[in-house]
């Protein structure tokens, strides 16, 4: 039993069919519980009022926007090194999901920033980095769509993902260098340190984080299985044309 067994599209689809009915309801349940708990049953912040509750959507989306890119990088590397088609398709399937998470993070950030910082947009390092990440997602998806041959497209996007990751990290530090920030640091890992996140916010946030990870897994599995089926369909059509 090795991990690489799941590189077999059939095995992958079967496993996905078994995992999906667990992960998808888990995502729905966690997000519903976490968001309702967060939005209606947590106290308001003494300074930020009710706007603080945007973090229950903002933080998980922002976290997954980055993690989705990392997952695409790993999948691309697996494709380049071991030539498993499922891996390339998974990277392709994850890109639009990651892009939407990036958009959600940017939009919720803007909604929060307007009353709090008095501006919809500020050229803050974190905000700017996310905007650049969005551009990377756009370019990656555009390249997938522009190249017709699926294997060539998988190879080229894989190379782009690897090189793009290096430049995305470079951009992150370059942008930090370029402008000092307005955005607060992450508080979620500060348990036990000074100035931690209030427990009243901590637990609903954790539930939301679990929910959004489950949502990402469910969406990527579903989209990957769809891609596998589309590939099969294309092969069948091509065969019928020949006959």
């Amino acid at each position, binding site marked *: 039993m090795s991990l690489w067994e799941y590189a077999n599209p059939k095995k992958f689809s079967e496993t996905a069919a078994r995992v999906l009915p667990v992960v998808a309801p888990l995502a729905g349940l966690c997000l519903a519980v976490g968001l309702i708990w967060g939005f209606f049953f947590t106290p308001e912040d003494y300074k930020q009022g009710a706007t603080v509750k945007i973090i229950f959507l903002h933080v998980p989306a922002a976290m997954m926007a980055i993690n989705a890119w990392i997952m695409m990088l790993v999948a691309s590397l697996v494709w380049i090194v071991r030539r498993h088609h499922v891996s390339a398709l998974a990277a392709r399937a994850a890109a639009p999901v990651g892009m939407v998470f990036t958009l959600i993070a940017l939009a919720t950030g803007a909604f929060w920033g307007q009353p709090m910082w008095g501006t919809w947009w500020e050229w803050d390092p974190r905000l700017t980095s996310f905007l*650049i990440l969005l*551009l990377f997602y756009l370019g990656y998806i555009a390249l997938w769509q*522009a190249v017709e041959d699926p294997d*060539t497209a998988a190879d*080229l996007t894989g*190379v*782009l993902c690897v*090189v793009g990751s290096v430049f995305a990290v*470079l951009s992150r530090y370059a942008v930090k260098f*370029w402008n000092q920030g307005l955005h607060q640091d992450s508080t979620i890992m500060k348990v036990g340190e000074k100035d931690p996140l209030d427990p009243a916010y901590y637990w609903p946030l954790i539930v939301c984080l679990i929910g959004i990870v489950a949502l990402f897994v469910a969406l990527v599995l579903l989209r990957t299985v769809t891609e596998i089926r589309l590939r099969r369909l294309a092969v069948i059509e091509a065969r019928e044309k020949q006959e």
Partner: protein
Amino acid sequence: MIALLIRDLRLALRAGGGFGLGLAFFLLLAVLIPLGVGPEGGTLAKIAPGILWVGALLACLLSLDRIFALDFEDGSLDLLATAPIPLEGAVAVKALAHWLVTGLPLTLAAPLLGVLLHLPGQGYGWLLASLALGTPALSSIGAFGAALVVGVKRGGLLLSLLVLPLYVPTLIFGAEVVKRGAAGMDVGVPLALLAAITLGAMAALPFASALALRINLR
């Protein structure tokens, strides 16, 4: 390799090779910006470093698809791929040729346009230095983007979508050098980081570009 360099330079300098278009674009940009922003010297002096760098970057972008597209169409790229010199070397030479016909003239023309934009006196030396150091990175990264889209019909727009995000660090450090230089501040840190990006891009990216070319030539 030297023969390849000379061939590429000749092709670029010949009529229709696109040499000078980038320069003309750069000039136009430096003329249009004051028309849009207004003629106040103070404002122009403030934005001049950024404008000059963005202008150089866009002018560089214009001619990127020429690096491989024509050779791909007439088949000489296939010959290069099977030639005794490694494809990585050929890519590096082609990026160098691109720099010689776009980056270098842009660098030399930039101080002139700096005058148009009221760039403060201390900034000129750093403008030259930062462009001379930074534009090779633009050509190198651009060659990678061009290698990715060489098989795509009319990939020009896609090319800019892919390449511009990759230009972000170079632009930030390059413009920062000029900005600090013009304000009379210490430029050591951004200049060193800019040099690091250029050297890194020149050393590592030809391998990625050659890989992308081989995929496209399959």
